[in-house]
């Protein structure tokens, strides 16, 4: 009779990659629900399309690389990438946008670098930036919230807009985006940016109906949904609280300083927090264990840098939102941050190398 003596640690957690990925996907549900409520079926259709294309792309590449297809295909990482990409796409973008994006994310950003765990960039955000640079027209097809639209957008109408470019009645997305009063609507961040460029003060820009009572109709609830999902992840210990806290604090401080100096030309702190992809980025993108920094101090620096970049690009850059660009720039600097924030090894004195 043989006794198999395993070396320590003897207690194992059952946390596999797939379980973690599943948890993160469940945590995006509140935010997706808010998106569905305010912007209709578009994002859900895009998520489905992205998941399908990501699966096909992942299967093809894994087969070409002679990998264990069954294990790696269903580890959930491809689905999570597709879900995050689908969330960040404009709801009325044509179908091929999410297909190209998902295939690029899986094949070029993830698998060409060696698969899960080896990618230097966050696949969903790299694909988003690729799409934004390649198809600026389609990627800015953000529709106004349903309550502000002059036409009703049903599920079948959304589906036919995504696949054929027109609703069943023959309206183009540009017509759909038109407000009852006859002007095209953009996202709150975009509207504010345009307003400031035209010389309006922030409070004058905020008169536009896209802002609603607080920071933007729908957007505040979407961000609130992702905030709840993120808090669930922290409670379940799936992500470290340091990264989102540092990111949000950094964005808060930057926007507070600007607001105190010149309240007429800069938006309030909470406007920055509850608009665009802020909460999604804080809790779901920056906390990516592969492409982020590793030590606690490194994560603080990493996320604070992201917050600063988001603020700078939102305020002074050419694009209204900046989370994807900020995340990619931080991904690039993650190895350097890791180099300078190595934790002290146990037993060594602090201060000496």
């Amino acid at each position, binding site marked *: 009779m043989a006794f198999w003596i395993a070396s320590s640690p003897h207690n194992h957690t059952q946390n596999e990659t797939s379980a973690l990925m599943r948890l993160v996907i469940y945590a995006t549900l509140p935010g997706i629900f808010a998106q569905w409520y305010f912007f209709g079926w578009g994002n859900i259709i895009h998520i489905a399309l992205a998941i399908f294309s990501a699966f096909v792309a992942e299967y093809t590449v894994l087969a070409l690389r002679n990998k264990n297809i069954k294990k790696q295909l269903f580890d959930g990482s491809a689905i999570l990438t597709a879900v995050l990409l689908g969330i960040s796409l404009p709801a009325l973008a044509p179908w091929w946008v999410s297909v190209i994006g998902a295939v690029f994310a899986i094949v*070029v950003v993830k698998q060409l670098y060696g698969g899960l765990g080896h990618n230097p960039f966050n696949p969903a955000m790299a694909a988003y930036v*690729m799409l934004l*640079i*390649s*198809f*600026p*027209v*389609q990627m800015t097809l953000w529709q106004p919230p349903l309550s502000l639209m002059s036409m009703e957008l049903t599920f079948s109408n959304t589906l036919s807009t995504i696949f054929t470019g027109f609703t069943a009645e023959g309206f183009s997305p540009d017509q759909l985006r038109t407000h009852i009063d006859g002007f095209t609507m953009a996202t709150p961040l975009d509207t504010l940016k345009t307003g400031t460029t035209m010389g309006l003060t922030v409070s004058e820009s905020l008169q536009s109906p896209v802002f609603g009572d607080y920071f933007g109709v729908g957007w505040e609830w979407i961000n609130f949904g992702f905030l709840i999902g993120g808090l669930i992840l922290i409670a379940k210990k799936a992500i470290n609280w340091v990264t989102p806290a540092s990111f949000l604090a950094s964005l808060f401080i930057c926007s507070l300083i600007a607001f105190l100096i010149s309240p007429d030309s800069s938006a309030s702190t909470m406007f920055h927090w509850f608009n665009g992809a802020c909460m999604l980025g804080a809790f779901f993108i920056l906390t990516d264990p592969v492409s982020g920094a590793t030590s606690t101090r490194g994560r603080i620096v990493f996320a604070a840098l992201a917050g600063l970049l988001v603020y700078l690009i939102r305020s002074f850059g050419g694009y209204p939102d900046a989370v994807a660009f900020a995340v990619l720039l931080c991904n690039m600097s993650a190895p350097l941050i890791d180099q300078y924030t190595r934790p002290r090894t146990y037993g060594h004195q602090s201060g000496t190398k």
Partner: protein
Amino acid sequence: MSNEYKELARQGLWKNNPGLVQLLGLCPLLAVTSTVTNALGLGLATLLVLIGSNITVSAIRQWVPKEIRIPIFVMIIAAFVTCVQLLMNAFTYGIYQSLGLFLPLIVTNCAIIGRAEAYASKNPVKQAGFDGLMMGTGFALVLLALGAIREVLGQGTLFDGANLLLGEWAAGLRVEVYNLDSQFLLAILPPGAFIAMGFLIAIKNVIDSKIAQAQPQPEEQNIERVRVNFDAQ
């Protein structure tokens, strides 16, 4: 054709290709290959300069002092680039304009000075000229492949604007592969060039490893050794 010329052709076109293997002259390679026409224009210009500079460098190699050979090579190359630039300015003004700065920048193309230094300054005129022809052709082929990939992906056409380079008859060469409502801007922008270049290099490496696998492997004799040194433990 003797063996030496065969080897030179193989080196220039495939095994030691300036674009895919030496990775020299990447700046014009990535910057101007957004269409086939631009790529062809720059490829021909580089080819002409490379042949001319190789022949000249080889012809005067006995009289060039070793210490100041680099400045002399650069001046020879610059002279040829000026000739080519003036010729293109005179006869193909459209392509001259669309290549812009990258035409005079051929002077700094490391592929050319690399060949002058590594081959032409040590070999007779005939071989040096042939080497220039082959290296230049290899470089031009990579430019063409990259230009074709980027033009098809970016605008869905091939040979768009070929009449600028080849004269009016070439306007009929334009092929519309497929029609796009919106351009795929990434393929036209420099990052797309980097990605496409990476794919080209990968394809070349795959072909090389397939060829290496197809070669019969020399069988290695297995010699079993028994470790008899008990003291080390």
